[in-house]
């Protein structure tokens, strides 16, 4: 089922000229972020007209690979070659990849909520007569495309009036309007309910019949097994295997084994085994509604943390873990709390502002140190003392010398590598930034420290130091709740762990009894048939 390759382009000398069964081949792709190897010699090949699923844990490199394909990481920022339709291809931006028929639909849809369906479909490549947009033709074409994706909505409806499932289909219609040959979907069903998911998968099969090749990233292994012709597994930036489902039955456990397939080695420092103390933190029936996305983001969450304990919070991206932390810690996003109670240090508590939470003895190290962790234009000293400046204030005045002394103490204790505490944090490496972010909270001396992805994007050495620090802190009696998408880290560091999926706690286990496989199967909700659709998105009203 070969399709005609386009013949308009000249042949580069190194390229193969035969139209092969491969639509896309990525060979030996290496992508570095500073000193971190995000992709290490990845090979990824897609046949014409197939549905190819890409699976792997968070951080395995799936999104990075797709960003290279979309031109978001332009040619030159990575090593390796891309062959598309048999020719070597160099992509320098989204416009380049669009031109040759590659379209990516990200999990966070890039749509314009205030514009109509037909305007969204043709935005950026409007149908023009001369220089003027022909709206009538646009409307007719949009209706045809909507029919093709089997979506019955008024093309004049505003995007914001539609549910997320329908928006996804509109995004596909947009890709079709650009004559897409290779459609890439990044976790398309993550935010969909079952009906919408089934509908979408059906459509992908139909498009395959029409000759559109499709690459889908997904964490839902069952739907992967149901739809894929080929499955490629990535792990730690390396291609583990590529399995043809038509050649032989692939099972869910095959996939999970390939996705995790490692053993815990010595990267996690041991800490003195101690009996955890009294319950410090008890959350019961925590149900939270987000007015922005108009859905319940947390449902009936109940967790405990004891004194001197590290509690892991595992789950996939978007499982609601960060939202849980933010809803507890002063609720800065302005969620609406439906029900639930929090008992902290034996007292019922509810924090209306991070200040109250901090004063009560809570600390939250954010997931994204650059976005909301550090004031990057300020120095280490400024950042390290920001959350507990009161300790250094007498009368109205911040004691500058005391402050420098405190900052230097923290710099030493956390081994922040910088010439002095006057180093601007924007110039530090990721690991040292993360340590500065931690320093800020250690200085506040909290009773409970919530760490959100504490080692994301930092090198192994800095990771080890942070783990050691965590051990010291719990040995001193602090409690830690660690949110992490790295299963090994969760298993290696936690005493006890919870697994979250779709805003709910779907499992609790001691770290000793858990395995990566068991956590993964809980987090992907495989084996669960009793799922209720919680995604009550507002349906079309226009």
């Amino acid at each position, binding site marked *: 089922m070969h399709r005609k390759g386009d013949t308009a382009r000249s042949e580069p000398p190194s390229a193969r000229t035969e139209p092969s069964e491969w639509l896309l081949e990525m060979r030996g792709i290496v992508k570095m972020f500073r000193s971190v190897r995000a992709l290490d010699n990845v090979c990824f090949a897609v046949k014409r007209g197939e549905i190819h699923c890409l699976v792997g844990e968070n951080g395995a490199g799936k999104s990075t690979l797709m960003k290279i394909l979309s031109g978001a990481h332009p040619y030159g920022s990575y090593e390796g070659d891309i062959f598309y339709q048999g020719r070597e291809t160099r992509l320098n931006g989204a416009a380049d990849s669009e031109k040759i028929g590659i379209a990516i639909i990200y999990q966070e849809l890039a749509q314009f909520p205030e514009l109509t369906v037909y305007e969204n479909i043709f935005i950026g490549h409007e149908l023009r007569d001369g220089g003027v947009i022909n709206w009538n033709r646009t409307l007719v074409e949009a209706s045809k495309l909507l029919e093709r994706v089997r979506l019955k909505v008024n093309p004049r409806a505003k995007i914001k009036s539609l549910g997320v499932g329908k928006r996804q289909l509109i995004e596909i219609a947009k890709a079709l309007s650009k004559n897409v040959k290779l459609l890439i979907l990044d976790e398309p069903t993550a935010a969909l309910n079952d009906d919408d998911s089934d509908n979408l998968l059906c459509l992908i099969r139909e498009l395959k019949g029409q000759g559109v090749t499709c690459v889908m990233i997904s964490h839902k292994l069952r739907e992967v097994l149901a739809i894929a012709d080929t499955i490629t597994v990535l792990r730690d930036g390396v291609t583990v295997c590529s399995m043809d489902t038509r050649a032989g039955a692939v099972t869910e456990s095959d996939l999970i084994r390939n996705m995790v397939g490692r053993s815990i080695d010595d990267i996690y420092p041991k800490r003195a085994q101690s009996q955890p103390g009294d319950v410090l933190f008890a959350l019961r029936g925590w149900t939270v509604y987000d007015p922005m996305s108009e859905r319940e983001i947390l449902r009936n969450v109940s967790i405990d943390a004891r004194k001197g304990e590290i509690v892991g919070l595992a789950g996939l991206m978007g499982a609601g873990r960060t939202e849980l932390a933010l809803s507890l810690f002063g609720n800065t996003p302005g969620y609406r709390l439906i029900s639930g109670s929090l008992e902290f240090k034996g007292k019922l508590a509810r924090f209306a502002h991070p*200040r109250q939470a901090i004063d009560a003895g809570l600390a939250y190290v954010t997931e994204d140190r650059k976005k909301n962790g550090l004031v990057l234009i300020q120095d280490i000293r400024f950042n390290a003392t*920001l959350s507990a400046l009161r300790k250094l204030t007498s009368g109205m005045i911040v004691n500058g010398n005391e402050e420098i002394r405190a900052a230097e103490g923290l710099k030493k204790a956390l081994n922040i590598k910088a010439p002095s505490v006057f180093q601007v944090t924007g110039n530090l490496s990721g690991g040292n930034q993360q340590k500065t972010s931690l320093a800020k909270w250690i200085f506040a001396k909290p009773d409970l420290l919530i760490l959100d992805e504490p080692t994301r994007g930092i090198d192994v050495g800095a990771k080890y130091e942070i783990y050691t620090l965590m051990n010291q802190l719990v040995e001193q009696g602090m409690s830690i709740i660690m949110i992490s998408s790295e299963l090994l880290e969760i298993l290696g560091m936690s005493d006890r762990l919870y697994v979250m999926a779709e805003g709910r706690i779907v499992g609790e286990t001691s770290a000793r009894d858990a395995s990566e496989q068991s956590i993964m199967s809980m987090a992907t909700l495989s084996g669960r048939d009793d799922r209720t659709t919680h995604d009550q998105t507002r349906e079309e009203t226009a």
Partner: protein
Amino acid sequence: MNAQTQIGIPHEKRGGPPILSLLKANIREYAMYIALLVIFIVFGAATNGLFLSPRNLTDLINQTGYVAVLAVGMTIILIIKHIDLSVGYVAGFMGAVAAMLLSRGTHVLAVIPIILALGIVIGMYQGFLVAKVKVPAFVTTLAGMFIFRGCLSRVTTATGTIIVRDTVFRSFSNGFIPDWFHGNGIHILTLMIGVLGALAVAASQFRSRRNMRRYDFKVSSPSTFAGTLALSVALVIVVFWMLAHYKGLPWTAVIVGVVLLIYHFILSKTPLGRSVYAIGGNTEAAELSGVNVAKVTFLAFCSMSLLAALSGILYTSRMASATPTAGLGFEMDAIASSYIGGVSVSGGVGKVTNTLVGALVIISLTNGMNLMGVDISFQYMLKGAIFILAVAFDIISRRQA
């Protein structure tokens, strides 16, 4: 010890002639002084020294006063990434109310606190909208521009221009500190203050040098240090010497000095000041670190309108009257002063002391061109050009840093 600029550069970056590298590290700050120096030389030459005469220098200080206090408040507003367009008419309106109260026989010592309190009330209204209701500051204060312009009109409708006869009130922007020593043509008290000022400048430079040493920063060579020290001390002495040969230190300078000291203290030494810089640097991180962003924003707008009211008092005092057009374009001068003084257009960076220099640059341009008889149309064009050059230079030099 200074909180907001990186003083000097760390050891490892050492290289090149020391003066050059020091200049490079602080190019942004020096550029402003160089600009001011060039302006003084050019206008001094173009006006045959008239620009640099004691009388004109005194005038310059009195003209700068009402803009400088506005610019100090504006600096904070701009650091936290907001803007206040209403300050001009708030100043005009408050000045008119002051003139009206005085003309009805209210005592000047009652008028001042009333006006300042009214300023705070206006600030509370705008601060509430920006901080709590989350109306963008641009919109809130644009509406304020309409409203307070209307208020100013209302107050002056019946009477037209309101003349101020109160001598105490008029002395704020026209009077001088008394001379207790009755020098012969020389204002002794002014000279004494000048000497004290020079000593304070020297002491602070010594202290900052000592601190930089202690924390292992590169310090300038002894000769460079001696040079800059002598220069700054000489500058203070010369300015006061000239003032002393005219009528002495103007009250405006005293008022601006006090405002500057208070705001400099708050920004560099108190947790509130830290919050301002934290919000400007990264609002989300500040909020999650326990900074009450809404409260600080509210206070910043209160302080802004309080200073606008003070500016109104100074301007009305200087004009000895309140007119229906008072306040026109003040916000432009205040915003330009802050940016020329090194406030970052992306927020989080700025110092009120530098803003004062920025205000001097703007007012020197106006004053000098007035002396030269340059048409007002060209004045606006030139001021606009210098403003945009300063900001573009700031952005480029920050990008390279």
